[in-house]
């Protein structure tokens, strides 16, 4: 055999050996394989600096119950696909998951999640923090309430001699001054990216103007849309708003594309990690003529469908532990997460106090998205409103009438 031939043989042998050796076993980092061993696998989507506290909590659970827990992070967008695979195969690999409260409908509609009617929610959990029921059944348990707060570039604000806008009128003035100071570019980014961000933002604006997102063509919605359309037409909103969502908003803030940007509070941790937090004012945001409104997001707990017997019992035990005073207190203390329980409020790290205070003020004006079966039609309509009314500048009233009729038809179809 030639030298080159030997090289090829060596390469192929090494490759096959490398393949066969580990292929025959499961991951080494897993304390025990989920279907066979006693370990539970829980998925929680976390920022880097939030991970340690959750790990500590799971270690406490292991000490108390003898059940080890593997922590994994499957993000909101990918979790449904993952559950489709597991449930479709009849072999769940996740025992418990935390999922974005605004992305639950698909899990129920596709029967990917188990009913939890038999699991009591502790009485100390505020009724306002209870996740929505679907068809009269409980599928999810409360875990981490959350709302968007607003981040403002402190230096730009001071240079303009302004204070964080507390009303829509003040927001217009800030946006106008920022545009003038910012080379004629809009410096306010509203999360209007297609999908959940646009839906949440429009819900907040419509509610703030006294409208109802489920009705869509009432006076409040028309007034809110007229204002947003004007903001867009006058260049007061950054064009990046159409791409603004939880991850891009952080980039817009640090790149100074956005000088005012609502976003989820994990942003505080990311900014603190980069020594940038002191460059931003963090507050609850502005109120409309009717009220302040903040869509309640955050994560709720669910158990994948098909998990039975002892595994389900253990998953439920872990869910109950995560709702306990001890767990909620530690998460509030270490991660500055708002808590579902009134008896778990505690001190938080100094860098997080401002954010937590803003979150709590925003939660006071919180709005849980209703779990109506025709929500998909509402969601679709609100996204169409962004494209047609805000961006394309079509007159709001006829568009809202058309879309409201579509939502009403969906409501009738679902018998609501």
């Amino acid at each position, binding site marked *: 055999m*030639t030298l*080159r*031939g030997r090289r*090829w043989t060596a*390469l*192929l042998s*090494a*490759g*096959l050996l*490398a*393949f*066969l050796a*580990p*292929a*025959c*076993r*499961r*991951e*080494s*980092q*897993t304390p025990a*394989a*989920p*279907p066979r061993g006693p370990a539970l*696998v829980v998925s929680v*989507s*976390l*920022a*880097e600096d939030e*991970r340690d506290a959750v790990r500590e909590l799971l270690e406490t659970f292991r000490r108390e119950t003898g059940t080890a827990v*593997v922590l*994994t*992070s*499957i*993000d909101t967008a*990918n979790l449904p*696909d*993952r559950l489709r*695979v*597991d449930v*479709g*195969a*009849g*072999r769940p*690999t*996740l025992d418990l998951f935390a999922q974005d409260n605004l992305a639950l409908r698909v899990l129920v509609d596709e029967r990917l999640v188990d009913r939890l009617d038999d699991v009591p929610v502790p009485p100390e959990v505020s009724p306002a923090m209870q996740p929505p029921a679907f068809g009269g059944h409980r599928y999810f348990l409360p875990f981490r309430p959350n709302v968007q707060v607003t981040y403002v570039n402190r230096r730009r604000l001071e240079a303009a001699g302004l204070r964080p806008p507390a009303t829509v009128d003040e927001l217009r003035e800030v946006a106008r001054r920022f545009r003038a100071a910012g080379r004629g570019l809009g410096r306010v980014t509203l999360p209007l990216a297609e999908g959940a961000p646009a839906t949440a933002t429009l819900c907040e604006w419509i509610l703030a103007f006294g409208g109802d997102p489920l009705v869509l063509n009432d006076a409040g919605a028309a007034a809110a849309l007229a204002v947003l359309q004007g903001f867009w037409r006058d260049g007061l909103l950054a064009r990046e708003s159409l791409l603004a969502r939880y*991850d891009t908003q952080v*980039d817009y803030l*640090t*790149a*100074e*594309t956005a000088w005012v940007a609502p976003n989820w509070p*994990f942003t505080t941790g*990311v*900014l603190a*990690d*980069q*020594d*940038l937090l002191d*460059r931003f004012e963090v507050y609850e945001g502005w109120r409309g003529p009717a009220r302040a409104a903040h869509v309640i997001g955050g994560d709720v707990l669910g158990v994948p469908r098909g998990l039975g017997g002892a595994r389900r019992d253990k998953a439920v035990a872990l869910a109950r532990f995560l709702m306990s005073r001890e767990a909620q207190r530690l998460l509030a203390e270490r991660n500055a997460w708002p808590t579902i329980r009134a008896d778990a409020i505690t001190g938080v790290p100094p860098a997080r106090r401002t954010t937590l205070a803003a979150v709590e003020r925003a939660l006071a004006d919180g709005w849980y998205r209703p779990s109506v079966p025709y929500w998909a039609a509402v969601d679709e309509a609100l996204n169409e409103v962004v494209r047609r009314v805000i961006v394309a500048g079509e007159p709001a009233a006829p568009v809202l009438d058309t879309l409201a009729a579509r939502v009403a038809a969906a409501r009738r179809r679902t018998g609501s």
Partner: protein
Amino acid sequence: MNLPKLRAIGLTAWAVAVAGLVLFPVYLVLMVSVAPGPALFGERPALMVTAPTLVYWRRVLARGELLGPMAKSLVVATAATGLAVALAAPGAYAVSRWPLRRRHAVLVALLLARMLPELAVGVSLATRFARLGLVDTYLGVTLAHVIGALPFITWILVGAFAGIPVDLEEAAGLDGASWLKTLRSVILPAAAPAVAVAALFVWLYSWNEFLYARLLTTSQNTLPLQVFQAIDRGTKQQMAAVAAVLLVPILFAVAFLQRYLRPDAMAGAVKG
């Protein structure tokens, strides 16, 4: 200055410009991974870091977010490469000796397989793998990557084998070589550049693949999943640090395989 000298200078400048363009993103990734937060803040952050920091690298290393994912990615990519080439080469060789029309039909069919949306195929394939207990195993991700890469590398190899003159095989046969020996000692060495390209393609595809890894992984991420996690909820620096690690083995793989990428491989193979 005479014309040849001018041309040489122009070509060198062109080569430097192209190299700069290609290497600039690599530089950016490395630069961001050692940049303190304030250095990246603002509309036009400097392209040079004057006070680099290793704090984000230390953080990534201390949290054990690199070694496990890197080991998994290395094993899976190498195994997928070996298996895919071992499976594709004999099949491609057989197809390359078919009549032109049949060969074209097979090549078009192979490309059709790649035209389906990956997500639609991915969820269905992963469900079947899950039924077989292949979720969270190296074998599951490796097989998924082999399935994803096979059509394209077979397509590459069919073209390469078809370009090798049949006379070579006949000459080997006249010298008493069996079919297998001819394939191993004559055809494969002659097609080494194409095999190297195919191997490089599979290795890079597997090394960077996200969808199947996401659907088939629970407890131990591959490196692309780790990068995504950093993009999703982490800092730019942490994302850049993990991405920089993604680059290093690629450089080694390319350095190793590039020796087989010879344009003169077939020169002088057949006389007259």
